[in-house]
């Protein structure tokens, strides 16, 4: 059985606190530059495109598409059987790593560019992780 305590859990820093508080509250929080309008991830208190520090946190739509993935066949104590590790492209532009869940972990069910929706799962008292599932799935 999958043992979630075997996951390597994130430890937030001051610059990423808003993101991990957001996942606890069911929100996927990105940042936007108010100078050049660029949206970016991972978090930092300045824009990686124009270096402006005039940036704000906002809640993303949670919609994404499947950019690329692998299916790991080596055993991991926090997962049951082979599992996907994916990079998704968020509707707002940035990409992030995740697992695709609530669908069979097989190439036939994991098609590049398929629409996805974020879903949050509490994996410890203090941490909820952002996962993605096929759009239209029941949460």
């Amino acid at each position, binding site marked *: 059985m999958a043992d979630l305590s075997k996951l390597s859990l994130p430890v937030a820093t001051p610059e990423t606190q808003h993101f991990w508080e957001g996942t606890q509250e069911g929100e996927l929080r990105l940042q936007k530059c108010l100078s050049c309008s660029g949206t970016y991830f991972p978090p930092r208190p300045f824009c990686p495109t124009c270096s402006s520090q005039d940036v704000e946190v906002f809640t993303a739509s949670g919609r994404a598409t499947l950019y690329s*993935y692998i299916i790991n066949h080596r055993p991991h104590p926090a997962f049951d059987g082979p599992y996907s590790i994916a990079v998704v492209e968020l509707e707002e532009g940035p990409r992030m790593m995740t697992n695709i869940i609530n669908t069979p972990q097989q190439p036939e069910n994991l098609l590049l560019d398929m629409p996805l929706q974020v879903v949050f799962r509490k994996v410890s008292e203090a941490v909820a992780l952002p996962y993605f599932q096929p759009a239209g799935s029941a949460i």
Partner: protein
Amino acid sequence: MKRGSIAIVGAAETTELGRIPGLSQLQLHADAALNGMRDAGISMADIDGVACAGESPTSVAHYLGIQPNWVDSTSVGGCSFMLHVRHAAAAINDGLCNTVLITHGESGRSNVGRSGFRGGGAATLPGQFEAPFGGMGPTTSFTLPFLRYMKETGTTLEQLAMVVVSQRLWAGLNPRATLQEPTTVDEVMNDRMIAYPFTKPECCLVTDGGGALIVVAADRVADFPQSPVYLLGTGESVETPMISQMADFTSSRAFKIASANAFAEAGIQHSEVDHVMIYDAFAHLPFYGLEDMGFCKPGEAGPYIAEGNTSPGGELPVNTNGGGLSYMHSGMYGMYALQESVRQIRGSAAAQVDAADISVCHGVGGMFAASGTIIMGTQETL
């Protein structure tokens, strides 16, 4: 670096490769260093610059009894040694030191006294935004861009398997290669799945070993016994510590910057290149290397390799020692790619390429995180 101003006059690997449980990682550095100095006909007292990765130059210099004027501990993964060569060239040309020893040693298989290159903790950006999703190191992150590459380029899994088949043919000509038996596309594709779509033979070996290089100003080559190997061009870059943040999954920005600078410095055309090494931690890396360096157009590397162009007898010999897939791979393989380029330019390789005057040696560090390119040539190319 001024083209041809620097030369490699000593090069050697550890006495053994593969499983070396009798030597600590530090002693692997030393074994390679001693072999390298013997190759160059010099002793420890002649060395005044030390560069290494995996161990600190402090540890290596002290262990070997060297009192350096210059050190470089650049550690950006398996291509660190390409960067050391480039940095050593700049340091020598600037008069900071005269004779640089670059060492690699890694107890990747046996884990005897291993230290060094390891990922960060749970509060680093990779620790926060990648590690929670169950990655298991290179097998699950280096491979992640490839399905996107396939979709954008039309490259097939058969072509991926052909990289293994091709390089195994080179390994069959090399008595020091770990895997020498020929293989087939079917065998490769039906082997154990590691991280779909990559099977075991499409992932690098895990072995022990080391290597060393001795680098000096080109005006000193007459003082050394080996045929000199001149540096024609060098380049380096880094992109991202997180595979998920690689800007384009079909192309490495670091590969492009490093190789473009090396080719510009060397002032050569791709048609002049006789031999190529592309760090192959996984079977897709030669695709990215050939395309990002400009040997193939985007999407053409798969068919190019599958048609045998990089195999023995082909027009562009690639990974002639068998590569990380079949020769050896200790964790930071770049040193072994450099060693093979030196051997080819000296004319002493096990699978020697005819008239090898220019060799391009291209390395990757981390998971497409960093890159270094070194172009070497014979006296005739100056």
